[in-house]
Every structure is written in C-alpha cells, then in structure tokens.
C-alpha cells in the first residue's frame, strides 16, 4: 500500500487483470516484498492475531445470525436452540462468545505493546488514533453483542450502559429514548442492537484497512525504536513475517481453544442463563471483563455526570498520547524510568479491572479513587514530566547494530508477568458474584468434570426418574424434548424407549378442525410440558416464588470462588460451581435454624441458599424414589443423580465438545510445532 507497484505477474491472464486493476501488485507490495524490521519480537504478531480474530468473529457471527431471532420473547430461546439443535451450533456460539474475549485480550496486548515501544510517536500518530477508533468500535460492538442473548445480564447491562447517556445535561433523556426506541429497554432496543452489532464489525474492518494502510506508509515501529536505514535492517514480509505471524496465531489458537472446548462459561456470567426479566434486578451487575477497568473508573467518581465523563475520557485520552509524551526516544527499552512507570500503569489497569468486579463499598471505593487518579496521572503527569527529566540510555544507530548487541533476558520476565496478569484479569468474572457470607457448597466428584469427562448413563437415567417423580410437579424443563433422551451423549435410551417415554405425557395441541384445543399423547419431538401455564400461575401456586425452569439451572447458578481460586480454576478446568451448588441446596435443608437467623413464615432454612430462606420445602427424603439398579435410595444419591441429569439438560453436547476439543488440541500442538520449525528455518539466515 505504499505507492504504485512495479510488480508484473508472469501469467498472461493475471497480467490482463493487473493492467486494469493492480490488485495483485498491491498485495505483492504490501504483504510479500514489504520490508519489515528484522528485530520485531513476538509482541508484534498480535496485529496478525487481531486480523485473524476479526475474520473469525465475522465468519461465526454471520452463521449465528442465520439462526438467531432478534425478538425479546424469542431471543433467549433461539440462542439455546442454536446451542442444542443447530449442527455444531454449540461450537459456533462458543467460538463467537469466547472469541470476543480473546479479541479484547489480544487488543489489550497490542495496545500495551504500542505504549511500551512508543509506537504512537511521530510519524505514527494517525496510525495510533485509527487504532483507538477501532478499539472504541470494538467496545460498542462487544457491548451490543452481549445484549443479544437477552439474559438477565444482557438486559441489565444494556439498561445500565444506555442510562450512562442520561447523565448528559438537557438532551440526555431524549438520547436515551432514541437509543431504546421506547420508554425502557425492550424489543425495539434488541432489534436495533442486533442491526448495529451486525453492521459495526464491517466498519471495524474498514478502519482496519486504513490502519494497515497508515502502517505501511509510516512503516512498522520496532523494539529498538530506530527507523530502518539500510536493506540490512529489514527482511521481506513473506516469508519472514508471514510465518512468524502464523506461529503466533497457532499459539494464540491454543489459548482460544482452551476456552472454547473446556472453559466456555469461565468468562461469562451465570446470570445470563436466566432469561431477561425487567422486573428483577440481579444483585450485582457487572459488565464483561474487558470493560471492568472503565467501569471501576465510572463508579469511583461520586458524581454521575463526572463519572461518565471520566469513563469516556479514560479512552479518549489515548488519542492525545502522541502529544502528551514528547520524549524523543521511542522505545521504553532505552528509557529506564518510563519502563518502570509502564509496568506500574499495567498493574493499575489490572487492579482497576479487579475493583470493577467488586461490590462498590468500603475499601473498594477508596482504592478505586486512588487508582483512577493513578490512571489519569500516568497520562497527564508522568508521561509529560518524564519527557523533560528523564535521561534515556543511548539508542543504537541501526537495527542491525541492536541485533548484534541483543540481550534477551527481559523477554522471559515480561512474558511471565503478562501471563500472571492475564490470568488475574481474565478470572475477574468468577469473583464478581457477591457471596453473601453463605457457606460455600462442598465440591463433588463429578463424572463429567475434567477434559475427558463423560456423563454417567446410570446417573442420568436415575436422575430423569427423580426429576419425573419429584421435581416435575413444580419445575419445568422446557428446553428439553423427549427426542433428546435418545441422542448421543445423553441418558442412552433407544429411539423407541424415548417415544414410549413421551407417550406417557399428555400434550396440548390444536386447534383442530372444530377450532378446539385437544390433548394427545406426547411424541418424541414434543418438549417436556411445564407444570404451570405461565410464570404468574407458578408464582401464585407457590407462595409468591415461582419455581425456576430447570433446563439451564446448573449453568444459571454459581457461587463466588474468590481470589486466588478463580486463577487455579482456569488451569484445573474447574467448571462445576453450578452442579456443586445445586447438589448442595438439595441437601442443605436443616430442621434446626441456627441462632441469629430468622426465617420468614412459609420459607425454609437452607444452609447453602443465598440468604438461607428458601421457599421450596425439602424436596427429597430417603427412599422416596425407587431405583431398579440397586443404587442406594438416599438423599445424597438422589441429589447427585438429579444434578447430573440437570447438567446434561443444560449442556447436552458436553461430551462431543470435550471429545472434539482433544482432537483440536492434538492438531494445534502439532501444527504449532511445525510452524515453529518452519519459522526457524526461514529465519535461519536472518539472525
């Protein structure tokens, strides 16, 4: 993209095209012969990783949109149907949802790299500002995408974020109405967010083209911050950078696949598996992890308008970075003070992210204010001051000179720091749930835990029996069809057995030719009928507390793991908070209420239920359900079986997910090794 190309294809057909549209020459000059500095390290591969992620998000997103229904009454269900019924729908959804997090993770690394090596300095100001615009567009896209599943966090996140605009004096309220298309967040809001969520990625792609164009005009910065002078300082983009980026992407894919196949809900919020309800606010609203530092800034400023201004300025200030930092030396490698402040700044951002996930009270508020000050001080005080008082170390004359004097000790420590920081940052969501001083549910040994976990068929069949004989009198299971009972990875019934099971149920159908509704025996395609016709009926029949639908209960409930457990969970693949909680609640009923706890009339004491007062009476007692296979008929066994069954109900394709995950990992590891050795071979002469 740096001017007209003198490239001439040898094929006559390509020559014909090239004379009319020099597109092959453009690609050739931009991505083949384009000179790239020899000393780039692996932090520079994140540009390629980001392009890859953008493509991935657009690709999976377009297919998901083919199956999604943007309507307030249908959106939640349509997402569940994607996961359950669409071929590899679970994979598409996990790729897209985890992909958003990975995209932001990569963009943060990319931005911090720019910050550390001074990539925003003359002549790359426009390049940097285009990057900030991309980041802002990404934030808008990510936010609107999070609204689409229409769960509780989607709805309340949308409410909180759109309400930010009401802080604007005079016109704020009208702007909010315009955003909503109504008097509150509702169906029109969901519709327009869907439209914009589909549009913005293409705008991002457009700005990315400008970003790359600006990059190829100014040339890449490099770790030493000296411009390439002779041909010895650069290598051609292909194959050198191409193969290095390929290896970077392969390594990044390993992390990405870890989330897709083993930890798909690690970065999400359990509340988002509860359908949106405008009448109930979740106790603790937290945005996605990638917004947490800015959310912390918003909350730490006590005035509403000032808080909103503070939050937006925290991003906008990046645009002015090229002029705030006037130091002549680009790379922090040669700036002893700037280097230290950079790492302090990284720590401030991570801590702000941690605070953003905490309830806004006590010490957290004060810490938030201090860190907010530090965040802005870095840009407004530290950087302008450093450029005046700091004496940088001598910068090498050329890139080749820098390579000869290369010391590589810093890289390892930087990598370690970043991995630790990343783990801390990524894990914030798990900590976000405020635990109200209740006992932590005890851990269980689940057959479905771990990378090779499988459902215990016997437990699924027994659990189905417990659900049918006990739970189903109050709780629905509306996302499960009878046909699911015969599907692979499920309770292991044959198609005939599932059909026989279905025919025991009476299903309402109609209207018939006479216009009347009628009842008929169930078919495999029917869904489990719910015990109550609607939520109000369920509420009225149960003393004001509607028994929740159990289809997703093991994913919709969780408990705070706390620091540092959520970090270990990432490595141990612990994903069983939901089942642990459900099993604990089923067994947590106690006759004797401990002192100091008052249980209202019509409620029961439960050790593990948040607040301890549960409306559901003790549902299970020993010997209540008979088992044919000789398993003990105890409450502990019932709880374990029915929880296993409900875990399958929430995640029917888990076995396929983990099986495919293993295959993907074997492939990716081999692929990454091949890329690495190819890269070594290609670069052998260049070092």
């Amino acid at each position: 993209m740096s001017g007209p190309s003198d490239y001439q294809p040898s094929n006559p057909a390509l020559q014909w095209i090239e004379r009319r549209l020099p597109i092959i020459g453009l690609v050739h000059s931009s991505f083949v012969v384009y000179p790239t500095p020899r000393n780039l390290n692996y932090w520079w591969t994140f540009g390629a990783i980001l392009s890859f992620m953008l493509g991935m998000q657009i690709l999976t997103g377009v297919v998901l949109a083919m199956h999604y229904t943007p309507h307030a009454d249908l959106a939640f269900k349509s997402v569940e149907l994607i996961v359950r019924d669409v071929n590899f729908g679970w994979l598409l959804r996990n790729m897209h949802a985890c992909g958003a997090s990975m995209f932001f993770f990569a963009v943060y690394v990319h931005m911090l790299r720019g910050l550390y090596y001074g990539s925003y300095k003359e002549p790359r100001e426009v390049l940097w500002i285009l990057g900030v615009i991309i980041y802002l567009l990404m934030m808008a896209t990510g936010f609107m995408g999070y609204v689409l599943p229409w769960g509780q966090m989607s709805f309340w996140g949308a409410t909180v974020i759109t309400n930010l605009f009401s802080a604007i004096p005079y016109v704020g309220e009208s702007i909010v109405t315009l955003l909503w298309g109504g008097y509150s967040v509702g169906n029109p809001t969901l519709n327009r967010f869907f439209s914009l969520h589909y549009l913005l990625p293409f705008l991002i792609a457009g700005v990315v083209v400008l970003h790359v164009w600006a990059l190829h005009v100014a040339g890449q910065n490099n770790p030493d911050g000296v411009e390439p002078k002779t041909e010895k300082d650069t290598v051609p983009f292909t194959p050198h950078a191409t193969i290095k980026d390929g290896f970077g992407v392969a390594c990044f894919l390993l992390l990405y696949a870890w989330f897709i196949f083993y930890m798909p809900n690690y970065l999400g919020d359990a509340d988002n598996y509860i359908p949106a309800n405008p009448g109930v606010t979740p106790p603790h609203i937290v945005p996605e992890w990638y917004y947490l530092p800015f959310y912390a800034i918003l909350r730490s400023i006590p005035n509403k308008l000032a808080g909103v201004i503070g939050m937006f300025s925290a991003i906008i200030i990046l645009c002015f970075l090229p002029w705030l930092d006037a130091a002549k030396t680009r790379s922090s490698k040669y700036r002893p003070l700037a280097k230290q402040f950079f790492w302090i700044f990284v720590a401030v951002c991570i801590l702000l992210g941690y605070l953003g996930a905490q309830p806004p009270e006590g010490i957290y508020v004060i810490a938030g204010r201090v860190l907010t000050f530090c965040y802005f001080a870095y840009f407004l005080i530290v950087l302008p001051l450093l450029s005046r008082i700091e004496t940088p170390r001598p910068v090498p004359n050329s890139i080749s000179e820098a390579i000869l004097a290369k010391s590589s000790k810093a890289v390892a420590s930087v990598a370690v720091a970043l991995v630790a920081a990343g783990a801390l940052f990524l894990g914030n969501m798990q900590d976000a749930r405020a635990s109200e001083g209740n006992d932590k549910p005890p851990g269980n040994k689940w057959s479905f835990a771990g990378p090779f976990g499988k459902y215990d068929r016997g437990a699924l069949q027994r659990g189905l029996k417990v659900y049918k004989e006990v739970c189903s009198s109050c709780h629905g299971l509306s996302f499960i069809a009878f046909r699911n009972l015969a599907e692979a990875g499920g309770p292991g019934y044959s198609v005939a057995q599932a059909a026989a099971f279905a025919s025991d149920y009476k299903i309402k159908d109609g209207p018939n030719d006479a216009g009347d509704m009628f009842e008929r025996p169930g078919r495999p395609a029917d869904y489990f009928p719910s015990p109550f016709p609607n939520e109000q009926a369920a509420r009225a029949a149960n003393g004001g507390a509607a028994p929740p639908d159990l289809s997703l209960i093991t994913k919709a409930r969780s408990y705070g793991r706390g620091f540092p457990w959520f970090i270990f969970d990432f490595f141990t693949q612990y994903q069983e908070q939901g089942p642990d909680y459900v099993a604990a609640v089923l067994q947590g009923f106690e006759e004797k209420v401990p002192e100091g706890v008052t249980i209202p009339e019509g409620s029961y004491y439960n050790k593990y239920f948040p607040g301890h007062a549960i409306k559901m009476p003790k549902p299970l007692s020993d010997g209540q359900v008979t088992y044919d296979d000789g398993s003990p008929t105890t409450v502990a066994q019932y709880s374990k079986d029915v929880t296993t069954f409900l875990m399958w109900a929430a995640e029917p394709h888990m076995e396929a997910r983990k099986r495919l995950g293993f295959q993907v990992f074997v492939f990716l590891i081999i692929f990454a090794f091949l890329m690495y050795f190819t890269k070594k071979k290609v670069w052998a002469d260049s070092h």
Partner: protein
Amino acid sequence: MNPDASTIAAGAPIEVDLSPVAEGQDIKVFWRGKPIYISHRTKKQIEEARAVNVASLPDPQSDEARVKPGHEQWLVVIGICTHLGCIPIAHEGNYDGFFCPCHGSQYDSSGRIRQGPAPANLPVPPYQFVSDTKIQIG
C-alpha cells in the same frame, strides 16, 4: 429511531385500583415498561418523611410536593434508580423506603434520595385520582 406508533399507543394511561392494597403494603405495576411502585404508607412512614429538614437533602423536595393532597398515604413513584436504572427494592435500607441493590443508593419513605451515588429522587409519574380508590397513571 424514536418510538414507533404502536410503542407510543401501548404507553397510554392506565388505571389502577388501590382498594386491595392494605396499609404498609405496596404494589408494583408496569407502565411504559417501567415499574411503578404504589405504596400505602403507614402513619410512621409519613411522619418520618415529613420530619426531615428538606434543605439538608441531596435533591431538596418536600413530601407534600410528592404526593396528592388528601391522599398523603399514597406514594406513587417510578421504581427506577436515578443512578443507572436498576430497580430498587421496597421496604429495605435505613430510611424505611427503597434500597437499590446495584450501587447501594437508598431512598426514604417519600422516594427521596438519602444516601448513595444516585443524583435525584425517584421520579413521580404523572397521575391523578379518578376516585378515592382508583388512580390513573399517565
């Protein structure tokens, strides 16, 4: 992108019968997709609301200005926290009023902000008494 005709039509005034709401109780109705709290306040709650020095409040407004004369026991407010739009919980917090679980704002028995990050009192929707036991919201 402003609300379309059907959304506006669905936002027409609604009538609410107050006779089943006993003293000390409150009901929540939805109007224009927003929850409206209608509280039948006790003597104690009214006295508390009136005993406050209005000038000391973050958003000064007297209780008299927030209810209809002759119907002092009825408080009608939009149950949306003026901070960032969560729904406060009735009968919680230190002021016998509302408590917002999101960011900890507390409102008194007149729906006025007393503590926390919210900048303003819970708004009173437009409403009038059609009869002694019936109001029209909107």
